[in-house]
C-alpha cells in the first residue's frame, strides 16, 4: 500500500514536470513568428557604437532573416550547439577578446529567436548592434 502510494507520487511528479516542459515548448513554437510568402522588402540597420549607423534595404524572397542576410553576404558566423551565431556583420568582426557580440532587435524590441529562426515579413526592420560585455 505504502509502495503503491510512493509510485503514484513519483508518477504524478514526473508527469507534472514533463507536462510543464511540453506546455512551455508548445508556447515557444506557437508564438507569433510568421513569414510572408513572396517578395519582401526589409530594412537592416548596422549599429556600431561611436560610428555612423549603416542602413541596408533588402528585397528578398527568403523566409528567415538569416537567409536574407546570407543572400546579401551581410553576415558571417558559425554553427554551434545553440544555433547559428553571428560573428561578423558587414565586414565588422566581433572581437572575442573585448567580449564583443552582435545583438539582433526588431524595431528596437528584443527577439526571442536566433537569426536562423526569425521568420521575416514585408516592411520588417531589424537592427544588428555590436554589443560589448557578455
Amino acid at each position, binding site marked *: 500500500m505504502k509502495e503503491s502510494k510512493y509510485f503514484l507520487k513519483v508518477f504524478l*511528479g514526473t508527469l507534472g*514536470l*514533463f507536462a510543464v*516542459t511540453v506546455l512551455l515548448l508548445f508556447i*515557444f513554437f506557437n508564438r507569433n513568428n510568421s513569414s510572408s510568402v513572396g517578395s519582401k522588402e526589409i530594412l537592416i540597420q548596422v549599429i556600431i557604437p561611436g560610428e555612423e549607423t549603416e542602413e541596408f534595404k533588402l528585397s528578398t524572397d527568403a523566409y528567415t532573416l538569416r537567409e536574407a542576410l546570407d543572400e546579401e553576404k551581410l553576415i558571417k558566423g558559425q554553427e554551434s550547439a*545553440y544555433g547559428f551565431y553571428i560573428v561578423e556583420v558587414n565586414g565588422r568582426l566581433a572581437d572575442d577578446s573585448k567580449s564583443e557580440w552582435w545583438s539582433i532587435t526588431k524595431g528596437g*524590441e*528584443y527577439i526571442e529567436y536566433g537569426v536562423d529562426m526569425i521568420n521575416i515579413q514585408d516592411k520588417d526592420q531589424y537592427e544588428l548592434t555590436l554589443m560589448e560585455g*557578455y
Partner: protein
Amino acid sequence: MPMRTKNIVTVGIMSALLITVQVGLSFLPNIELVSLLIILTTIIYGWKTLYIIYIFVLVEGLIYGFGIWWINYLYVWTILMLITMIFRNKRSPFFWAILSGAFGLSFGLLCSIPYLFIGGVPMAVSGIISGIPFDAIHCVSNYVIALTLFKPLYHFLNWMNQNMQKNP
C-alpha cells in the same frame, strides 16, 4: 589526518570533480553532471558544499571569463544547494530526478534575474523565452542523469566520505 586537512582535501577533490565534468561535457548544450554532483555533495557534506560551489564558480570564471553568466553562477548553484538541504534525508532517485529536472527547467528563469536590471522586463522575458528549448533539454537530461546515476554516485561518494572519516 587532522579533520581540518581532511575537509580541505574533500573540498579540493569535489571542486576539481565539478570543474572536470563541466568542462568535459561543455560541448553538449545543457547536458551536465554539475546539478547531480551538487545535490550529492550537499547530501553527504552539507554546508561544506558552499566552499565547493564557490571554488568551482571562481575557476569557471578564470576559464571562461567573468561575464554576466558568471553572476548567475554566483547564486544558481547555491539555490540548488539550499533546496537540497531542505530535503537532505531523501534517498529516492525518483525524488532527486524530479527536483533536478525542475531545476533544469527553471534554469533560464533563474539566469534572467541580472537582465531585469540591465534591460528591464522585456529583456528578461525575451531571454527566458529564447531559452525554453534549452531549458527543456536541461530538464530531461537532468531527470535522466539523476535517475540513473544518483544511486551509484551516492554510494561511491558516501563510501569515500566514510573511509576518510574512519582513517586517522
